[in-house]
């Protein structure tokens, strides 16, 4: 029962965020300044998700080679910048994570 409320509630809230702006904003011309600002939305949001996810380990700021997400994340960023190939970035990033974990575990 609780589960039904949770799922339908989340479904409603998510659609209520995604749909109205799509339906209404196209009809009203947004100011040029807003459009300019919107260009920065994807990089800013992605950064705000990525950076804490790789810098914090168990809720502690961990800037240290023992932070496997940080090491693999930096490597993935280098691959992304050099290759501009998303699939390659994902594959090398995941492999780097596994390899670094294995190295950390064997050199403990």
């Amino acid at each position, binding site marked *: 029962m609780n*589960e*039904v*409320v*949770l*799922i*339908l*509630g*989340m*479904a409603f*809230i*998510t*659609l209520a*965020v*995604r*749909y*109205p*702006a*799509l*339906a209404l*904003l*196209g*009809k009203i*011309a*947004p100011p040029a300044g*807003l459009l*300019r*600002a*919107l*260009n*920065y*939305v*994807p*990089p*800013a*949001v*992605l*950064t*705000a*998700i*990525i*950076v*804490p996810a790789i810098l*914090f380990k168990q809720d502690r*700021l961990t800037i240290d080679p023992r932070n496997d997400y940080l090491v*693999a*994340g930096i490597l*993935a*960023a280098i691959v*992304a*910048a050099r290759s*501009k*190939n*998303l*699939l390659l*970035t*994902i594959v090398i*990033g*995941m492999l780097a*994570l*596994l390899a670094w974990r294995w190295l950390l575990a064997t050199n403990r």
Partner: protein
Amino acid sequence: MHPRPPSRAREFWGGVQATGPLVVGAIPFAIIYGAVASTSGLSPLGAVAMSALVFAGSAQFIAANLLAAGTSVALILLTTLVVNLRHLLYAATLAPHLKHLPQRWLLPLGFWLTDESFVVVVSRYRQPDAAPYKHWYHLGSALFMYTNWIGCTVLGVLAGQHIQDPQSWGLDFAMIVTFIGMLVPFIRSRPVLVAVLAAGISATLTYSWPNKLGLIAAALLGVGAGVIAETYQARHRAAPDAPAEAP
């Protein structure tokens, strides 16, 4: 080279193809969501239903974690709202490109809005060609993400019955590395670099804020910093010796 005539099918499959790498990144994320959700208080059917009806990866993932921690439904709903607020910004970005479409297109495209599809389709919409069927490209991208998300959730739910502590496998890193691959190509100008640095530093400083509010604050600060940097750069370039801009 002669451009090929515009076609709905070609746009649709173009969208599917461009979304392929992002789908690969979403596969482990959906599997781990399914495995975590079905072991954290949701029923197997509920975990799949959430993917089909909510279709918001980070919000679903956070909801499953909060549920496991015994958080109330009301607080999970509030967190969903906050985590999804970024979609408002995505929708506002896409809206000018979609204004010619009827509601029967806008409602499903709104429902299927994700970080991944947004990044793919916004670059298609911004291409200067006047192709009339760019929304079919959008549809292809969205449908591919959606069907993959549901299918992999089912796999995750099945796997969750057998795996102990799925998060310790580091599969959640798949989403992060996907986002890194999406972010880096955006950093082509100094103002974007400023936006990224500002968002990254603020996100670190606001990490302890409740309910992921720091995410929204950091994103807004990043956008603000980018706009300020762009304005500064434009002024700097309009130096006395520069030619006057065309009216």
